[in-house]
């Protein structure tokens, strides 16, 4: 055990081995992802309730969602999931340069997602399709319509916040990879950052049909 600690300075004193530590870190990250899922569950519940109560209002309002932009964003996020999965793979192989490059591409895709989202938000602002009491779009009114946009902005906004956080996490991981912190035996932070990014993708996979296609 002392020799392993000397060879791998990342091993904490209370873990018997690096593998145990990695296993624990992964489990901790998954538990954290579970909390994120339960966090979004609240919003999905609100969505389910109000769609159930106002089917016409939601259906009419969802016609004003930009399906093309939403679909493009879906492809963007799915591809970014691929690149981050590849980044983890190459990190495990010890190839730092590919890891950094793939992480950078992932972050770029995240930025692209936010830009496209920004266009959508701008359009909604201009039209007056805003949440709650700020809703003043004359083209459509009725029960449930402003609630659709309230939930739209809340859910995509919270999701966007998670994209930003994810980009920050991946940037930090990329910096560490560029510094040479990772090797064949230790690449846990890349994996954990990737898990967070995949969660962001997972949530969007459900947000897209719920707001754009239904």
């Amino acid at each position, binding site marked *: 055990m002392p020799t392993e600690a000397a060879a791998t300075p990342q091993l*904490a*004193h*209370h*873990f*018997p081995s690096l593998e*145990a530590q990695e*296993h*624990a870190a992964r*489990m*901790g990250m998954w*538990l*954290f992802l*579970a*909390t*994120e899922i*339960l*966090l*979004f*569950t*609240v*919003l999905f*519940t*609100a969505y389910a*309730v*109000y769609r159930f*109560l*106002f089917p016409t*209002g939601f259906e009419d309002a969802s016609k004003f969602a930009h399906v093309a932009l939403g679909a493009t964003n879906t492809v963007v996020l799915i591809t970014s999931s691929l690149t981050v999965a590849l980044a983890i793979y190459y990190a495990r192989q010890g190839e730092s340069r590919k890891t950094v490059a793939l992480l950078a591409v992932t972050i770029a895709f995240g930025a692209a997602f936010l830009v496209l989202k920004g266009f959508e938000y701008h359009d909604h602002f201009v039209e007056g399709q805003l*949440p*709650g*009491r*700020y809703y003043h779009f004359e083209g459509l009114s009725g*029960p*449930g319509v*402003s*609630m659709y946009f*309230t*939930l739209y902005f*809340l859910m995509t906004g919270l999701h966007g916040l998670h994209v930003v956080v994810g980009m920050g996490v991946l940037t930090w991981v990329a910096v560490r990879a560029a510094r040479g912190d990772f090797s064949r035996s230790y690449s846990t932070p890349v994996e954990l950052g990737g898990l967070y990014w995949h969660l962001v993708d997972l949530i969007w996979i459900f947000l897209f049909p719920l707001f754009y296609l239904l």
Partner: protein
Amino acid sequence: MTYNSPNYLNAEKGLRSWFLTLDHKRIAVMYLVLVVAAFALGGFFAMLIRLELLTPGPTIMDAMTYNRMFTLHGVIMIFLFMIPAIPSIFGNFLLPLMLGAEDVAFPRINLFTVYLYLIGAAIAVWGMIQGGTFYTPYSTTTVTTVAPVLLGAFILGMGSVLTGLNFIVTIHTLRAPGLTWMRLPLFVWAMYATSVIQVLATPVLGMTLLLVAVEKAFGFGIFDPARGGDPILFQHLFWFYSHPAVYIMVLPAMAVVSEVVQAFARKNIFGYKAVAFSSLGIAFVGFFVWGHHLFTSGQSTFASGIFGVLSMFVGIFTAIKVFNWTATLYKGAIHVAAPFVYFLGFLYFLMFGGLTGIALSTVSLDVHWQDTYFVVAHFHFIMVGATIMAFLAGLHYWWPKMFGRMYSERWALAAAVLVILGFNATFIPQFLLGNMGMPRRYYSYPEQFWSLNVASTAGASLLAFGFLIVLAYLVVSLVNGRVAGPNPWGSRGYEWNTPSPPSVLNFPETPTITRSAHDYQDALEGEVTHAH
């Protein structure tokens, strides 16, 4: 059992070594100080409430101030005492010792939760002094500021989630060799179940409070009927966390009691697997019953019926535990010390609190009792009666382990009796008051409720006095108490295989576990030490 390292209390000196510590034992002691301070503060507001209720009309405050008093009392007691107390103090201190580990899985996150507690507490209390409530539409339309309380509760929730996460990973990954799941102390099983609830339920509360804050600040109208919102949706979301939250409070109490009953009956638990799995059962089924808080809110009678039936199922798991703890006493060699007296109080209060809970889950009865003192008495029986008795039992049982000193047993027994009597005197009148129809959260009441309210206030004074005595002799014991050896109770629990207080390094080398915890009947001749 001594080896060459100083104990965790005096190994390093100075405030920095405490405020930046990564040692789970020091973190536990810091939580002890903070949580007891919170309990004193919550108790102070309780006494103000009881003083106000001494007379039918206004006594020492007006209605708005009274609202603040019970809000402060309730939120402080729940979020700053009941939820963190046993997990953050005893869970932190004992889990690594019981598992044969050097620390919890994520020590830095552990330290971080202490600061989340402090900051969340400060913001929430500061906010509540200005007034606040959670339920919509009051919370979204009131002129009082609600945001600080919501933010404070959110931060506290984060601490709770991280603690639960830490414990789950610790229990999965840091068990010593030979420590299989079926050899785990029952304390660990119940803490595991508690941590699962903490991790899965608390985010729901966080998001719900955030929605209220957003609605109040920006008028988004998620819960506002004028914009198509449903205020009852808030209640669904709030209670989806808050019902499992009561199991976050009671499961650790049951954890402590499982340990105490075995040590003080000097007998293996009756039905280890049943008790272990019933903890998981409570955690799981506890998520299915939240609608029993919405019986009179406008929820459909169909849904109320479902929730009423599901609520009764939770009682089954609690009954299993009560039966098994009692059966453990049969043919045991009972040592009547303070922890055991608190265990007896716990058992009595849990039974009556639990039975009134089952009664309340009957929709037709709850319609009469909802928002009366019957409900107040019910949850105080469980929370104060059961949980605080268990907290005190654990505090007395593990006091020598944590601080190396024995407290005065005579004072402890006297205080225990006083606390139990004072508790009964405080809350049994409240059952009667509630059944007679006295509503909760009212600062004035009709004349016919006067005498019972006076009785309740008298009881509360006795109770408070009892708690103060406990605090006094425990603090005195730190200086004057008899030095406790490694195992003053003669308990077979794994944590007693360390010096008292433990050293910074929990174990000189990782132990290998070859027996189950609390194996009194199975232990070999000469292996079992007797209490002295």
